[in-house]
């Protein structure tokens, strides 16, 4: 405990599941090709051997049944974790997440909680095409009762996933495909409260807000901006619901300028939604406000097109510089 190691994001995810399964016999894990094969992104190898085939098992291609089964199990004594392989497939499972899991604790008048975690791989940048690259956040954020978490680092992935599994509410835990092979330090046994943003870089001239892979892009951009004499503070939201607007407002009170970076469309996206909440609460702290999002199109396959679609480091720097 307390030790720390430098490991891949994918390994951090597995470690979190492994430790929670060891700690709590009610935790089970299932999904398509997650057990024997260890997952298509090699995130969960070994868990079946470790915890047995009755607690870690492969399922049919039945996203709606997995989601509903997790719900029914969660309200009757288990703490299920299930995987929806690509986040693009979440719509197939959403009726159960939205209409059953997210509502149960409230509608039952708090008779029972619904502790489940749905893990899913999201994000563009790998030329997987329009149906294997999306961020599901716009579809899920407006669902009271469903927490939405999207870690940017291996350390956060580990600590936030453990917290998600221990949480009494349904949690959508979103892992970015482009982060799986990124390594950084993870401290054993750590958990982080859900709904706390983090200031991951300090700066006085503007506040860059993002999450998941976007945080890395923002940190890279902040370096380049520093060379141009612009001091960017970077806030990692970590969670979309609960949403920690306080940390963002405090940063903006200092910098007076906000730039939100979202991998997804502007219209209906979380980025402009956050900016709207910030504007409503802290309008007079804002001298400038900007959202750097993506073209309002599906995500194209061809590298030249997808690269142009992404809110990459270079684009972040350019759009901020053009504006300044």
């Amino acid at each position: 405990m307390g030790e720390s190691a430098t490991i891949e994001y994918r390994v951090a995810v597995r470690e979190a599941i492994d430790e929670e399964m060891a700690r709590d016999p009610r935790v089970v894990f299932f999904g398509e090709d997650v057990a024997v094969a260890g997952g298509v992104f090699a995130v969960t190898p070994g868990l079946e051997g470790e915890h047995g085939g009755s607690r870690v098992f492969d399922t049919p291609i039945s996203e709606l049944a997995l989601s509903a089964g997790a719900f029914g199990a969660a309200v009757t004594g288990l703490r299920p974790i299930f995987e929806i392989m690509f986040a693009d497939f979440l719509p197939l499972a959403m009726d159960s997440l939205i209409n059953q899991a997210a509502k149960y604790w409230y509608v039952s008048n708090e008779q029972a909680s619904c502790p489940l975690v749905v893990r899913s791989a999201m994000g563009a940048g790998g030329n997987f095409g329009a149906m294997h690259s999306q961020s599901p956040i716009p579809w899920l954020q407006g669902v009271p009762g469903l927490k939405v978490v999207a870690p940017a680092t291996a350390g956060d992935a580990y600590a936030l996933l453990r917290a998600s599994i221990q949480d009494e509410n349904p949690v959508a835990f979103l892992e970015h495909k482009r982060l799986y092979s990124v390594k950084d330090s993870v401290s054993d046994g750590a958990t982080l409260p859900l709904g706390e943003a983090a200031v991951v870089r300090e700066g006085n001239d503007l506040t860059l807000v993002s999450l998941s892979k976007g945080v890395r892009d923002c940190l890279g951009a902040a370096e380049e901006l520093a060379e141009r004499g612009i001091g960017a503070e970077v806030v990692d939201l970590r969670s979309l619901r609960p949403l920690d607007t306080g940390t963002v407002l405090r940063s903006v009170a200092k910098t007076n300028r906000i730039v939100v970076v979202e991998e997804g469309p502007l219209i209906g996206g979380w980025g402009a939604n956050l900016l709207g909440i910030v504007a409503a609460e802290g309008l007079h702290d804002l001298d400038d406000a900007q959202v750097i999002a993506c073209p309002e199109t599906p995500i194209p396959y061809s590298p030249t097109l997808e690269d142009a679609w992404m809110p990459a480091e270079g684009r972040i720097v350019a759009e901020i510089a053009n504006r300044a």
Partner: protein
Amino acid sequence: MAELSSSQTVPGLDLGAEESLGLYRRMRLIRSFEDAVQVQFQAGNVHGTTHLYSGQEAGAVGVCSVLGEGDKVAGTYRGHGHALALGVSPQGLMDELLGRETGLCGGRAGSMNVVDASTGLIGCFGIVGGSIGAATGAALSQKLLGTGTVAVAFFGEGTANQAYFHECLNWAQVEKLPAVFVCENNMYMEFTPIENVTAGEIVARPIAMGIHTRQVDGNDVWAVREAAWEAVEHARSGRGPAFLETLTYRFVGHSRSDPGRYRRPGELEEWRRRDPLLLARAGLEQRFGIGPARCEEVDAEVAAELEGIVAAGLAAPFPRPSAAATEFKHG
């Protein structure tokens, strides 16, 4: 093996006179409860919409009569009967429909979404197919926790054409889950005759998956009870899910404001002659020599009970709005 032990909590299959009269009383309670709901709905005291179980009472009462401690039930938007058959408090249910603080869910749920953890009612599900998913998941808990209990899903025949039905039945059979799927075939999907929208026989579908499947007269409470006993024992013993189709009929509209124009001429009258309450009375007479007089006593007792329930419900306070402000259970 451990899984089996708790089946001892299920009462013996053969019922004595008093127990049989108890089934009749339960069915009468549901019928009278629904009549009272209809009155209160028209009076504007029950809000939104309601879907009544009148005419289908033998199904839920027969099935729930073989359930025991720890077994779970998932019902539908047509769930008052499922809830009452399981033993949910009629007062708590009525208060919920009246939107009162004293309701089972404090007025948050309403007619379509009632939950009662204390009796094993996972919930009633307003969205078609939800009950199938919930029971499948509960059965997953029961299997993995080794409780030896079963989870029952009630749903209508129209639900057999929807995603939850197919995906969950397959998965339950693959995992040999202790689930019992009770398809209440009342011949209509809302206003549409089921044969207009369904290819083949519904029972052919679970049979194609190798699921233990039976069809039964859904208006004969003893027949339902026997079929349910067999289905529950199959599931409880670890042999996988069971499927039971109960053939029945809805005496009232699908929901508030349904004139029932889709009914075939004479159809309703024909089924009324097979009213589960009439069949139960005949059965009580024939099996135990319990005559109409005794049944009317029961009817009167139930009527009186319900009068008190409605009065108490109407006197109960509405929830205070501040209650609407919580979002999460704090982990």
